[in-house]
């Protein structure tokens, strides 16, 4: 056992600084009082119980789930084909195209959001769940492309050639060999892109119109002090769900890189 060095203490403080504030959310969601401050007045699960009866909240949750699922499917299917092309083929403009796909990671959300709003309105797409889904797909694409690229990186090209050599056509080869081998990567990509969409606020705020997603709904509730404990409870649940999804996604991503021999 090595003694903790100065760097380890630094690393520990760094992580505490990053993540401790997040832990206040679940802590105060069990506080028996409407003011978010120490000392804790007492413990209650009342705020969680109240969540069940709020219809607008349920509707926002459903909106978020629908947007998340559709986004995950769109981004992952596009990411799957894009990643295969990036790993397998050399073509003109490949580097540029790979850079372009990663761009949403670095453009400020507010810029993307306002440009998309202008674009969508000018081509006749009203702010709606569909607009949010399109925006989220754009945001989630870099995640699915990089996850699928790592799945294809370890994939021996001769596996597809062997399937072809043994009589399978292009579609059969994809279905019986390519898909099953990259399946863990696909699951990881679905989960991550769903989470990206489910937690996203800025784009949804600009593009959702009168169909708020859950983060937009939470933002609207934060203005009412009486609703704050409810919001904390809801936020804690979302936090838990996100962490759980990402852990599962990471499990599948690792499995995908291990499965290739």
């Amino acid at each position, binding site marked *: 056992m090595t003694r903790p060095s100065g760097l380890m203490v630094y690393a520990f403080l760094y992580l505490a600084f990053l993540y401790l504030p997040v832990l206040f959310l679940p802590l105060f969601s069990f506080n028996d009082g409407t003011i978010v401050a120490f000392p804790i007045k007492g413990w209650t699960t009342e705020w969680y119980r109240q969540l069940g009866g709020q219809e607008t909240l349920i509707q926002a949750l459903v909106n978020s789930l629908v947007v998340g699922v559709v986004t995950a499917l769109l981004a992952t299917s596009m990411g799957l084909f894009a990643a295969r092309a990036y790993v397998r083929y050399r073509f003109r403009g490949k580097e540029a195209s790979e850079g372009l796909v990663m761009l949403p990671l670095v453009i400020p959300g507010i810029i993307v959001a306002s440009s998309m709003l202008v674009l969508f309105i000018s081509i006749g797409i009203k702010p709606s769940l569909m607009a949010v889904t399109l925006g989220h797909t754009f945001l989630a694409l870099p995640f699915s492309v990089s996850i699928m690229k790592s799945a294809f990186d370890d994939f*021996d090209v*001769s*596996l597809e*050639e*062997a*399937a*072809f*050599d*043994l*009589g*399978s*056509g292009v579609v*059969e080869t994809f279905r*019986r*060999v390519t898909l*099953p*081998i990259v*399946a863990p990567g696909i699951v990881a990509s679905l989960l991550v892109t769903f989470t990206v969409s489910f937690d996203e606020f800025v784009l949804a705020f600009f593009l959702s119109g009168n169909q708020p997603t859950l983060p937009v709904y939470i933002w609207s509730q934060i203005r009412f002090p009486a609703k704050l404990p409810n919001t904390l409870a809801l936020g804690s649940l979302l936090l838990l769900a996100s962490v759980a999804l990402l852990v599962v996604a990471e499990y599948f991503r690792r499995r995908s890189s291990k*499965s*290739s*021999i």
Partner: protein
Amino acid sequence: MTKKNIIQLQGIEKRFGKFVAVSDLSLDLHEGEFFSLLGPSGCGKTTALRMIAGFQEPSAGKVIIDGQDMEGFPANKRPTNMVFQSYAIFPHLNVGNNVAYGLRNRGISKSEIDGRVSEALEMVELGGLQSRGATELSGGQRQRVALARALVMRPKVLLLDEPLSALDKKLREQMQFEMRHLQQELGITFVMVTHDQYEAMTMSDRIGVMFDGRLVQVDAPPTLYAKPCNKEIASFIGEMNFLPARVIGEEGDGLTISIPCFGNMKIDRNPNVAQTGRDIEIGIRPEQLEISAQKPENYDGTVQGKIRDVAFYGENVHYHVQVDGIDRPIAASVPNYFHTVDHRPGDPAWLGVQSASVIDLGQDQSKIK
């Protein structure tokens, strides 16, 4: 008895942009033979194999398999199957499903598939391992699965791309014999690509040697070893002493030459090499040289020199003999019959050679001004 040509390559060529990977390759492969394409890496042998398999279309020329022109037939429509260098075992399928993969593309009944799969696994000595996971196999087992998966399709030609290069030395030698036996039992034509001359020589009926995209010589292993058609092949296959010589007389298929150290002798003319001037190069295999302390009798050429190095290999001993007037020492190898090393560095020694062991390698390239 003339055997049927199962594969005919007619002037096939493959260009990638300006790079010519394979140029004007013509070759007939007989039914039931074990043929190896041998050459250094990058010589185009794998590209040639992939054109037979249908993974690549020739830029020019024809691939004819069993009398049928294969143009427009991709790999999944050809009567060939391939064993890949990496084996390409499907990691998500167990051994049985790996072997059954191709049969399931053919709409064969389940019971027949099961029968043929277990028969194929028996053949490669993996009987009963159907449910073993692909990731649980050793290197040698994966090689066997790859063989079974291709052979179960009963291809007219089995193509093997460096099939033994991923195995360690002992296993590789064992598999060389097993594959040879399998091929003779089944009577299927095997076409193997390899850069390993020993692998090619131990397994093949005939070997085609490729350099820089060209097929240079096609012969049975003993002929290829004894009569390499040029210096490139002579130095690629086995060991060879290269010596300068001068043509002093020509009569039909024979040449009378003068070798600076061994004197004059009559040798066979090599029809494959150009000989424009009188300066030629000749080759002598180290094991064809007699080495002794006294002047050997009844040899067509003899010379005295001095032992410079002795290398003991176990099964034989190599002596490097320095001879006056020859830049590089001449290598002679002697089988280790009596577990003795008869000569020491610095000892004088005689070398003797028969004219039949001297190979004409044509115009001495170093003497062209």
